[in-house]
C-alpha cells in the first residue's frame, strides 16, 4: 500500500544521524521532525534565523516574533539560537547543515530539481531553495511519485525551470526510496505491498531495478 505523508516523513526520519543539523522544507519535510528515531539527537535549522527549533507552541503561547521558514509559529529547545539571514545562509552555503529535506515538482535522473515556478501560471519564488540545493551535500526530496494529472515527477529531464542541477541524492515518495547515482534512479526500497511493476510504470526517468527490492521497514 502506498504511504501517506506521515509514512514518507517516517521513512525520511530513518536517514537522520546523531549530531546532524537538519533543514526541513515546507510540507511533508516539516513532518519529519515528529518521527526522530530513538537515540538520535539532531538539531533543526530554519533559514529565517533559528537553530534548535522545538514543537509548535501550546494554544495561547504563540509569539509573532518566533516563526519558522514556513511562517508557522514555533518554539525553541534549550541550546537554541537566533541569527540574521546572512548568518543563516552562511550555515547553509558553508555546509554546516548536514541534511536538507525538501519538496519538489520534478526531479530528473541526474539529480536536477524543479520546485519554484510554473511559467505563466505560478510564480511564488524560490525562497531559500536555490541556496539549499546548491550548497548541501546531502539532499533528500520528499514528494509524490506523480503529479495531480497522473504524470511521473521522476523524469529524464525536468520540464519546469530548474531550482538546481545535479544535486538531489535521494528521493522518497509514497511508493519508493530511490537513490540518484550516475544519471539514473536506483530503486532501493518499495513501500509495503507496492509492486516493483507499479514503480516502474510510474517512473519516466531511467530506473535501475535490482534483483531484490526490499520493503521499507516503518
Amino acid at each position, binding site marked *: 500500500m502506498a504511504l501517506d505523508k506521515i509514512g514518507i516523513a517516517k521513512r525520511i526520519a530513518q536517514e537522520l544521524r546523531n549530531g546532524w543539523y537538519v533543514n526541513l522544507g515546507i510540507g511533508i519535510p516539516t513532518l519529519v521532525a515528529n518521527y526522530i528515531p530513538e537515540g538520535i539527537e539532531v538539531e533543526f535549522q530554519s533559514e529565517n534565523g533559528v537553530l534548535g527549533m522545538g514543537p509548535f507552541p501550546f494554544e495561547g503561547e504563540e509569539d*509573532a516574533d518566533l516563526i519558522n521558514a514556513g511562517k508557522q509559529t514555533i518554539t525553541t529547545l534549550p541550546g537554541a539560537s537566533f541569527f540574521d539571514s546572512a548568518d543563516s545562509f552562511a550555515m547553509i552555503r558553508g555546509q554546516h547543515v548536514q541534511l536538507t529535506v525538501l519538496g519538489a515538482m520534478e526531479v530528473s535522473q541526474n539529480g536536477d530539481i524543479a520546485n519554484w515556478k510554473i511559467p505563466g501560471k505560478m*510564480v511564488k519564488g524560490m525562497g531559500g531553495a536555490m541556496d539549499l540545493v546548491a550548497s548541501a551535500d546531502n539532499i533528500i526530496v520528499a514528494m509524490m511519485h506523480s503529479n495531480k494529472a497522473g504524470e511521473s515527477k521522476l523524469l529524464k529531464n525536468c520540464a519546469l525551470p530548474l531550482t538546481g542541477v545535479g544535486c538531489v541524492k535521494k528521493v522518497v515518495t509514497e511508493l519508493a526510496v530511490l537513490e540518484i547515482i550516475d544519471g539514473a534512479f536506483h530503486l532501493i526500497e518499495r513501500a509495503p505491498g507496492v509492486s516493483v511493476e507499479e514503480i516502474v510504470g510510474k517512473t519516466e526517468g531511467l530506473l535501475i531495478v535490482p534483483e531484490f527490492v526490499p520493503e521499507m521497514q516503518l
Partner: protein
Amino acid sequence: MNKAVENVAVALDGIKDGVTIMLGGFGLCGIPENSIGELVKKGTKELTCISNNAGVDGFGLGLLLETKQIKKMISSYVGENDEFERQMLSGELEVDLIPQGSLAERCRAGGAGIPAFYTPAGFGTEIAEGKEVRIYNGKPHILEEALTADFAIVKAWKGDTAGNLVYKAAARNFNPLMAMAGKITIAEVEELVPAGSLDPNQIHTPGIFVQRIFQGKAFEKRIEQRTVRKRD
C-alpha cells in the same frame, strides 16, 4: 549622537517618488509596520522595494501593492499575496526574484563595501543567465553583485538614541543586513531607550548603521500561520 526623531512622519522625510527602499522582515515577522502605514498615507509612488517577501493581502507590503505605489519588487518569495500575483502576471508590476541567501548576502555586501562575490546558489538555473560562472573547489559558482538602497527601513525590538538596535527572536532576519545597506537607514522600534541603557556586548546593529530612529506607535504583529498544539 542623538538620532531619535519624534515620529514616523519625520523619520520618513525625504522619501520621494521613484526611490529604492529596503524593508526588513520575513513574512510578516519583523516588518516595519508603522513606516509602511506612513508610506501609504504619504502616497509615495513608483517605489522599488527590496524585501524578502511582499506581505499578504491587506497587511505589510500588501498595503502598498493595493495602492499601486510599488513599481518593482525585489524578493525571494512572494507566494502569499493574490494581488501581487495578479499585478505580476498582468505585467503591471516588475519583479526580480533572487535566492534568499543571495539576497541576504547581497544586502550585507552592499553595506560592507564588497561590490561582488561568488556563490553556488542558482547555478544552472534562469537566475544565472548572463552571470559570470567560475569553478571553485570543483563546483560552479556565479558572480552576484551587492545591493544598496536610498533608504533602508528596519524594525527592531529595542533601540537607543545612538541608533543601536536589538531584535527579538526570528524577527531579526533581514533587518541587520538592510540596516547596513541603506544610504539612509531608518529604524522603527518597539521601545526606544536612552543611549547607555543597552548592553554594548549585546547590540545586533551598531548605531553607525542607523541615521534615524523612532518608537512605533502601535504594532499589530499579525501572525501568518498560527500553528499550535493542544495541551495533553
